[in-house]
């Protein structure tokens, strides 16, 4: 981990007052809270802000961090530990290779937990005290297809874990799951300090867009192209649903935009969703003389003005 400029992260000047820092933190925390934010890396940003605020809100820690920062900016220099311990040096190059987090722990962690001094870099620390600690929960988004949401199923997903590992987990996708629902996989989160204290893994379901269907809640919508004569005369057509093709009746004298409902053909559930078909009249391209004549006959035979309602709408 590289050195982090907490002032930059907080968007404040290095000489910002405690009040300014607090204000900046509150604002950023609301903006990047993973439950509130739409940004994909909100979780990391929120953690970073929290880490920055933890240090900067405490005058003592802030003073130590300021020292560290000055000295990183100077590209390596001599420094005395706050405890008045030994003096040590290292170059910027060395620093970049150091685990910044460890460094932070050694400088800002609970003092009694660390054995200051003695190691290669003068920052060595001993064993942390063992505590009964519950492992953290892990949150991930899981994108599923509309077909999977409809039929349910199981599949193996690869998840990037906070420790950098990739883990393969078999996940059962319940039938009829909707966008935004959470699956909880018990004990699959981060390990705790002892067996049985593992955190949980939460998968938030996102349903991927579909080439044909649109989803809203459990309802499925399909734009259904029809010919002018199917719309005029009525017809029985085959239409796709997530559960397979079904036959649907188009009533005579239908128009573009008319919405027909197939009850219970949406995502399963109690009650199940519906499927809707929105009619869209598509004109054939007129290519032959004969086809042109047919349309001319329609024009001559019909007393039809689809723009009647627009008349009188013009003012001035």
């Amino acid at each position, binding site marked *: 981990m590289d050195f982090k400029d907490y002032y930059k992260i907080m968007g404040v000047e290095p000489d910002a007052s405690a009040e300014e820092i607090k204000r900046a933190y509150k604002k950023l925390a609301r903006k990047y809270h993973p439950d509130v934010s739409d940004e994909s890396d909100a979780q990391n940003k929120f953690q970073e802000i929290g880490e920055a605020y933890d240090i900067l809100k405490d005058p003592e820690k802030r003073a130590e961090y300021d020292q560290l920062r000055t000295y990183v900016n100077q590209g390596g220099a001599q420094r005395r530990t706050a405890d008045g311990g030994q003096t040590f040096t290292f170059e910027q190059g060395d620093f970049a290779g150091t685990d910044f987090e460890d460094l932070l722990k050694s400088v800002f962690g609970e003092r009694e937990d660390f054995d200051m001094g003695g190691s290669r870099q003068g920052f060595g620390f001993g064993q942390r005290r063992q505590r009964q600690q519950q492992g953290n929960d892990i949150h991930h988004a899981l994108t599923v297809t509309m077909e999977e949401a409809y039929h349910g199923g199981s599949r193996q997903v690869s998840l990037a874990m906070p420790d950098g590992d990739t883990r393969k987990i078999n996940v059962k996708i319940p039938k009829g799951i909707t966008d935004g629902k959470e699956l909880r996989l018990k*004990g699959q989160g981060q390990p705790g300090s002892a067996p049985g204290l593992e955190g949980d893994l939460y998968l938030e379901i996102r349903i991927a867009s579909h080439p044909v269907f649109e989803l809203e809640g459990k309802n499925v919508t399909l734009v259904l192209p029809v010919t002018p004569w199917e719309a005029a005369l009525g017809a029985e057509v085959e239409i796709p649903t997530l559960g397979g093709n079904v036959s649907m009746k188009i009533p005579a004298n239908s128009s573009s935009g008319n919405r027909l409902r197939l009850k219970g053909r949406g995502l399963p559930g109690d009650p199940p969703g519906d499927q809707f078909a929105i009619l869209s009249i598509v004109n054939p391209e007129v290519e032959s003389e004969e086809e042109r004549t047919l349309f001319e006959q329609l024009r001559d035979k019909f007393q039809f003005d689809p723009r009647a309602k627009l008349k009188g709408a013009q003012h001035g």
Partner: protein
Amino acid sequence: MDRSSEYIDEDVIYTVKELCTACRIEKSYVVELVSHGIIEPRDDNRNVWRFDAVEAARTRRAYRLHRDLDLNLEGVALALELMDRNRKLNERVRFLEQLIQRLEQQ
């Protein structure tokens, strides 16, 4: 180690104790959430509180907002309600935009 899934689906019902374990909260916190109308017990049994998975997810979200943003429970309740509304509106807008696009492509 067995990595097969044990998932909590929508049919799982939590008792107060189970909810506390799953969300790592105290019983009194559940009572507070209910009295603020943030979560609602199922109405199939008035004497014993039971919660479905949606309420459990809501409990966790409420707790996170409370803890991380230093909100009181009135604030949490309002935030959750506005977030719900926002989510529904976003879903609706996305749906309508997609629909318009499809109609234009016909």
